[in-house]
């Protein structure tokens, strides 16, 4: 029975699985590239930060809050014209990267911000007192000390991203969510849906475990 199911659905499921991984991977990478520096800037420009700047902080802070208040499914449709203009297509993996990044980058910025804020101010001060420049302190002290918490934050963001890619199926991006919806729901093939759910559960479990193990390794206290 399993063999029969796999001959019928195997290729579809494998393809959808890779699409999900691809969407998640690419969006995550771009979101980190945007979110991490943004998180650092938020910490530095906030009140009492190394480069306090009220205007910059409140603008970025507000934009992040606005984006984060829009549910992904709405963001997806809202961004359709922009995606078409920038990427040239709104379907497939390419068509969905932009909304996924717009959704995830501010989230990562917040997670990074809170991770960086946890770093003991005393250590930062100790390095300031030794005449070490702010940029070096960010790299060698703040990011280093926060890395364990940052990994945990990124794990949370990744899992959220996997969930979002499932919704991206609605605009024709493919992936596991799309498969479950198209066949499982619209064409009454519940088994396909169950299998997709199991795969998603395993995927999320694996991500969380990986994140936990990495974080624990990096934590030395």
């Amino acid at each position, binding site marked *: 029975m399993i063999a029969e199911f796999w001959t019928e659905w195997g290729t579809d499921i494998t393809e959808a699985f890779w699409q999900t991984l691809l969407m998640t991977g690419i969006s995550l990478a771009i979101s980190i590239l945007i979110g991490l520096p943004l998180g650092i800037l938020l910490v530095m420009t906030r009140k009492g930060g190394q480069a306090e700047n009220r205007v910059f902080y409140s603008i970025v802070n507000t934009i992040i809050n606005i984006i984060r208040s829009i549910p992904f499914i709405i963001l997806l449709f809202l961004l359709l014209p922009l995606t078409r203009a920038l990427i040239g297509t709104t379907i497939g993996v390419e068509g969905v990267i932009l909304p996924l990044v717009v959704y995830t980058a501010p989230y990562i910025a917040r997670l990074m911000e809170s991770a960086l804020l946890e770093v003991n101010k005393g250590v930062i001060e100790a390095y300031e007192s030794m005449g070490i420049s702010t940029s070096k302190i960010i790299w060698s002290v703040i990011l280093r000390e926060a890395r364990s918490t940052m990994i945990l934050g990124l794990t949370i963001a990744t899992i959220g991203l996997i969930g979002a890619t499932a919704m991206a199926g609605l605009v024709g991006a493919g992936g596991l969510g799309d498969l479950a919806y198209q066949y499982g729901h619209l064409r009454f093939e519940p088994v396909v849906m169950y299998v997709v759910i199991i795969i998603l559960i395993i995927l999320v479990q694996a991500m969380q475990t990986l994140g936990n193990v990495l974080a624990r390794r990096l934590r*030395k*206290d």
Partner: protein
Amino acid sequence: MIELKNVSKTFTTGKKKVEALKDVSLKINKGEIYGVIGFSGAGKSTLIRCANLLERPTEGEVCIDGVDLTKLKKSQLRKTRGKIGMIFQHFNLLTTATVYENVARPLKLSKVPKHEIKERVDKYLKIVGLEEKKHVYPAQLSGGQKQRVAIARALAQEPEVLLSDEATSALDPNTTSSILELLLRVNKELGITIFLITHELDVIQRICDRVGVMHHGELVEEGSVIDVFTKPEHPQTRKFVFDEANFQVPDSVKKGLSATGRLVSLTFIGEASNEPFLAAITKKFDVVPSILAGGIDQLKASSVGKLLIHLQGDAAEVERAISYLEAQHVTVEEVAS
């Protein structure tokens, strides 16, 4: 070496203004250990943080070797800070780095040549007695050991001055002693000037040459430790000195005693503490002394003995006994009852 000139610092939170430092001036000479003592909230922490501009004074100058730090550009200030090491109450080590890395990292960041880094780290870990713990993470160390790492980290910068912000306040008495000994050695053997703040009189007594007393943001008294100890003038200083000597005699007891004679405190320095004064006055004059409290404190330079005694006898005889004691270089003070 370090000179603070008319330093004031006002913190503004909302509409509230707090004057943490009010026109404080002090001078620390090269090679000495200078301690500032005060209760919490006296402004001493703000004061020491002004010495390397972790806190920028609202007014006044902070001079290191004659250079006013408040007028330096950022990059120049960073350079000058390399000459000033600092240690803290809570050690402030990287939790994610080993003992070795904790000492080595700031050197790497200050672009010290590679071979020299290893040399310096090994040298200073040896001085603080932690060469065995090189590859251990701070979480596995005791408080005293962590402070040793922090001291090694500060020393590895090869500073001329070491600032100590309550470095022993989070440590137990035994560990405090060993850290104080280490600081004393750092001062003597490496010739590093030390500026420390503390709320523990013990720290001042054991390692400081000079002391300043802070109270409500002002430096109310200053002088050599011996002078301040034996002739404290400001009420705040007296509080520190007498609290420590356990001169707390219940008021009811004092009252009862002052009815039958005079209550005086005797302070004697160094050699004088070996003389049997009380036996002498008993023989020479018609007085009956009785001891209420007393002790000898070992200061860095000398020992100081203090006694609280009750002198019973004819008023004139008591007066003569006191004059005799004063002639023997004992400081006699009436204790208010």
